């Protein structure tokens, strides 16, 4: 059930400007009578609500929006940066391992051939400790980056 004058009824309810012909029509048309009943109820509710519960101040919404924007920007930057950081860390670990292998292997060879002496012992342990330090640092860096990008 639909009437072509429904939009006029809604307009009249919102503007409170009724023509006598429209009022007469509402008296005879069920669809327009329903529209008038519902529209009047809702517009009265809207009027109460605007005085009771105003929207938050514009400055508050603006500042929160700016904060969210900055935070989102930082997250985007971190997301771009984290693969680069990981690549640099991986390259560093790889090159250190290659370098240490070239230093440590001859020492191991010496150890196997002639047993421990003071010099080889120091080189082997130094290389192992350095490797542990690098792997530990890379792990901490990895966890830190992962935590930042999950936030």
């Amino acid at each position, binding site marked *: *059930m*639909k009437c072509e004058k429904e*939009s006029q009824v*809604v*307009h009249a*309810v*919102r503007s409170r400007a009724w023509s006598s012909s429209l009022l007469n029509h509402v008296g005879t048309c069920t669809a327009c009578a*329903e*529209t008038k*009943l*519902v*529209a*009047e*109820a*809702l*517009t*009265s*509710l*809207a009027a*109460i*609500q*605007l005085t*009771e*519960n*105003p*929207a*938050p101040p*514009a400055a508050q*919404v*603006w500042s*929160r*929006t700016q904060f*969210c*924007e900055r935070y*989102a920007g930082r997250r985007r930057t971190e997301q771009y940066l984290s693969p680069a950081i990981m690549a640099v860390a991986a390259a560093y670990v790889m090159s250190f391992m290659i370098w240490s292998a070239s230093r440590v292997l001859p020492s191991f060879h010496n150890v196997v051939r002639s047993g421990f002496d003071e010099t080889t012992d120091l080189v082997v342990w130094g290389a192992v400790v350095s490797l542990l330090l690098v792997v530990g640092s890379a792990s901490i860096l990895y966890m830190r980056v992962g935590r930042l990008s999950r936030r």
Partner: protein
Amino acid sequence: MDEQAFNALYAATAGSLWSYVARVSGSPDIADDVLQEAYYRFLSSKRRDLDTVNAKPYLFRIATNLMHDRWRRSHERGWVDYLEMGIDENPDSGIDVRRVMLQLKPRARELLWLAYVEGMTHREIAVATGLNTMSVRILLLRARRKAALLLGQKGKRQ
């Protein structure tokens, strides 16, 4: 968009947008959250430089989508159970309109509010809700009938 332009847009749209969300969700807290998120998404979008007339339906669309997301998340908990705003009387007819609104489905509340309070056309409502114009017409007719029935029953009881 700078702060001055935002203030102008906010002054022209925030009141009606907040009322819409508060009335459809039944909660002023949800209205505050959705309003904040809607303006944030609007300002982050490519359409942030739209003028007020064109920005308004887009803001309503964002707010409607955000409400639907919340509705889906809290469906089991019962979307229509929010009665934080209390119940008061319509000064003209003594009818408890708020309670009637909460007896309607959220989609029906959206459509009725946009059509009768915001005065939007079916096409504008379609933009704001993501429905097609024909669906808006049918669903609005059903919603109006249901609301009129409930308001009529309340009126007779009083």
